[in-house]
């Protein structure tokens, strides 16, 4: 096998190269030639092609994502911002938290178990590469129609894969989402979020500084699996008959990752590391070029030193391999031995593959021959940037005009119909209990889980002495985003913000995973631009910076894109987790109070979707000032311990919130529909900025004062009762009553019946 060396490239300028097969456009290929003043070697071509793929370079999204930086609120809590492996925020007492969400959508359709498993593995390595100990994971998921025959395969594989990897790593799963919609049939979304904690002094960055320092590759051996996997997969649309080519998928080894976590934290805490980087998409190409360009700008790599699982791999393949569970560290020469000792202790293989130098170039040798000689920035940062055309899709007007008004979609109008609707909605796959999913995840490991599913946010104790902790929620109603992507993204943010505040934590920072169709479709690009702008505007207004995130394009089959799905994760801090607000009421006689105002807002609602398969109209209006005021009441009420329980109102409206609280409490409530209001609208509208809170009689006057001071409308709608029954009175002059055991039976049986 002959090696395409730099000198050979110089003397053979006309050699034809398969740039198109590697996903490069002719002008991109030309650009590489301009940068190098010659044709690239095959190894260089491999590096540029993976690094300039949509997945790695963000070439279509970059121009819009800049808004997150431009509009970032001045926030002293931000220690590391966008651009690093993950953002880092200060949570007080010398503690810092890093969190990020990432997608693994395409691989999870092709091989659901391994696709989802390696998705968890990838995001966890992002967190450890910041110097943090991972402490929790979450998994926002979207699947196709629950009754479609293929959905079962995907659901079972994805859930088992997330559990299989996360459980084996010893990370509690503290929340996520499970949403079904036909728009995800051939494009399930598997987003994975990881939270890590560290002391300020442990923050590490991905840069190769210090001339003469060693570059160490450690972890799993490099194999031929997943070559071009993520980058090719994530940049191609499946055609209508399913995956056109079935590219190789990586298999995860969570045990190796667990060793990698312990080993990495030990070398970091021992002060043995100058810079560190995980290997994700684009493998060694990415790690070396990013480390080099973030440091002094020069690095040399002896590629033949890389430990291989398969000795027949070519240098191009080694550069592109996306084998999992690998990391790269920059270590001063005097500490290399100590570094290797820690690796030996954890049974982790490691080898020095390179050296930092002052050349300003990234050079790679293969058995003494130079196969790469490039400016590292040109690979890692100076990829192409596209100003893709975008335009409001023509179909949107008709869809927005198609409002779910009472004359167009039949609404329940009697107590009997309300009861029937209540049970049907409780059994809607999107609203039914997710226990079948979440019981496959360990939520107890590490012993610091204060809240987990089905609570409004997951909450983790960070400091065992002081009780300082963090809460995280992820949300997105993609139907809202389909009706209005700007508002949809803001509503996703608002829901997530509210979920964090509901548990008593103060929202601090935002991460996001923007799942969209093809950026080459101007309509999709418009949705993307609107969603990013909406989210950036809301984050600025609410003083919660975006600290990082991920973009997943090409989630579409043929011409049909998924609903735009900007999943938003909000992280909050709580001084003492003992003060958290749970979702379940406990004490008969406590008042049940509705916060916020309910309008006739059913466009994009779960009711319209489940009962009428309808999607049209305009999403609920959002007033961020009101959202901030509501959060203030929820947070201060928790700190002063005057809120006994609280639950946010979102999908399925007030009715669903009451059902969920009853199911969690196992004792019931008596609710009266406020006089003069339409019971159906009160129960199933999805107006934003609302929550149900539970207040003991002794705290009522304090709570009323708190609401008045913050201008938050409150309505006492009922009280907790000892009997296990949820009773709604004044429903079209009659009473509706359902036993909690019936609700439980209905809610719990849905997912097992579909997928068990």
């Amino acid at each position, binding site marked *: 096998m002959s090696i395409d060396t730099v000198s050979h490239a110089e003397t053979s300028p006309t050699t034809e190269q398969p740039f198109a097969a590697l996903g490069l456009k002719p002008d991109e290929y030309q650009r590489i030639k301009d940068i190098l003043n010659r044709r690239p070697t095959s190894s260089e071509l491999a590096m540029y092609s993976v690094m300039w793929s949509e997945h790695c370079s963000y070439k279509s999204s970059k121009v819009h994502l800049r808004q997150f930086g431009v509009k970032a609120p001045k926030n002293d809590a931000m220690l590391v911002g966008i651009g690093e492996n993950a953002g880092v925020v200060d949570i007080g007492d010398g503690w810092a938290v890093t969190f990020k969400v990432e997608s693994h959508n395409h691989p999870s359709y*092709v*091989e659901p178990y*391994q696709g989802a498993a390696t998705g968890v593995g990838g995001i966890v390595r992002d967190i450890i590469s910041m110097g943090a100990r991972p402490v929790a994971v979450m998994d926002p998921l979207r699947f196709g129609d629950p009754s479609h025959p293929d959905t079962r395969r995907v659901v079972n594989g994805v859930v088992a894969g997330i559990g299989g990897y996360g459980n084996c790593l010893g990370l509690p799963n503290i929340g996520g989402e499970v949403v079904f919609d036909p728009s995800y049939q051939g494009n399930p979304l598997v987003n994975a979020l990881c939270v890590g904690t560290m002391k300020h002094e442990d923050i590490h960055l991905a840069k190769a500084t210090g001339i003469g320092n060693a570059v160490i590759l450690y972890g*799993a051996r490099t*194999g*031929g*699996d997943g070559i071009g996997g993520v980058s090719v997969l994530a940049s191609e649309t499946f055609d209508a008959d399913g995956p056109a080519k*079935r590219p*190789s*998928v*990586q*298999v*995860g*080894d969570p*045990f*190796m990752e667990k060793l990698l976590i312990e080993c990495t934290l030990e070398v970091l805490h021992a002060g043995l590391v100058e810079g560190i980087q995980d290997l994700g998409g684009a493998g060694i190409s990415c790690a070396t070029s990013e480390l080099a360009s973030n440091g002094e700008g020069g690095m040399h790599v002896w590629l033949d030193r890389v430990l291989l*699982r*398969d000795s027949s791999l070519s240098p191009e393949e080694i550069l592109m391999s996306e*084998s*999992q569970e690998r990391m790269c560290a920059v270590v001063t020469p005097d500490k290399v031995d100590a570094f290797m000792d820690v690796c030996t202790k954890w*049974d982790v293989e490691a080898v020095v593959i390179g050296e930092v130098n002052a050349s300003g170039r990234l050079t790679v040798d293969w058995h003494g021959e130079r196969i790469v000689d490039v400016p590292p920035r040109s690979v890692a940062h100076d990829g192409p940037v596209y100003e893709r055309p975008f335009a409001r899709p023509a179909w949107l007007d008709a869809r927005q005009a198609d409002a779910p008004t009472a004359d167009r979609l039949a609404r329940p109008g009697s107590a009997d119909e309300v009861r029937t609707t209540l049970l049907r909605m409780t059994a809607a796959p999107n609203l039914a209990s997710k226990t079948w999913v979440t019981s496959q995840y360990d939520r107890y490991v590490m012993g610091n889980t204060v809240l987990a599913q089905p609570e409004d946010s997951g909450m983790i104790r960070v400091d065992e002495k002081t009780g300082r902790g963090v809460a995280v929620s992820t949300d997105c109603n993609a139907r809202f985003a389909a009706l209005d992507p700007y508002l949809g993204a803001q509503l996703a943010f608002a829901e997530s913000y509210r979920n964090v505040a509901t548990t008593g934590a103060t929202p601090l920072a935002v991460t996001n995973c923007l799942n969209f169709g093809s950026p080459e479709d101007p309509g999709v690009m418009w949705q993307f631009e609107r969603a990013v702008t909406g989210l950036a505007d809301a984050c600025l207004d609410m003083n919660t910076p975006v600290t990082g995130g991920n973009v997943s394009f090409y989630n579409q089959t043929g011409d049909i894109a998924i609903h735009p799905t900007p999943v938003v994760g909000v992280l909050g801090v709580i001084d003492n987790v003992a003060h958290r607000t749970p979702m379940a009421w406990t004490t008969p006689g406590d008042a049940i109070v509705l916060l916020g105002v309910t309008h006739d807002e059913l466009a994009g609602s779960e009711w319209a979707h489940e009962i009428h398969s309808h999607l049209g109209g305009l999403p609920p209006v959002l007033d961020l000032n009101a959202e901030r005021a509501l959060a203030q009441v929820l947070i201060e009420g928790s700190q002063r311990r005057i809120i006994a329980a609280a639950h946010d109102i979102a999908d399925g409206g007030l009715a669903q919130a009451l059902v969920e609280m009853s199911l969690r409490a196992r004792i019931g409530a008596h609710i009266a529909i406020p006089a003069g209001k339409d019971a159906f609208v009160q129960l199933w509208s999805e107006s934003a900025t609302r929550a149900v809170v539970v207040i003991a009689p002794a705290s009522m006057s304090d709570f009323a004062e708190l609401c008045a001071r913050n201008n938050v409308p409150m309505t006492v709608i009922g009280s907790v009762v000892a009997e296990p029954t949820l009773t709604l009175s004044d429903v079209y002059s009659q009473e509706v009553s359902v036993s909690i055991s019936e609700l439980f039976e209905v809610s719990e049986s849905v997912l097992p019946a579909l997928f068990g």
Partner: protein
Amino acid sequence: MARVIVNVALKPEILDPEGRAVQGALGRLGLTGVSDVRQGKQFVLDVDGEIDAAKLEQINSIAASLLSNPVIEDFTVQVAQ
């Protein structure tokens, strides 16, 4: 009655963490000189009646879809007694 044996193994280029773990343990137990270990699955099916060409065809297609994922695994089908 016929017995059909379907062996499913990860493709050679795919990482086999279980096989690797076994290989490590073999070394610690003193079995040296083992250059590779792969761990696969074996399905033993007892099928009523004869296995004719149509039935074998059907078993083959099930082996390719249910019992293995061709993206990462290879399989063999074998009719025994």
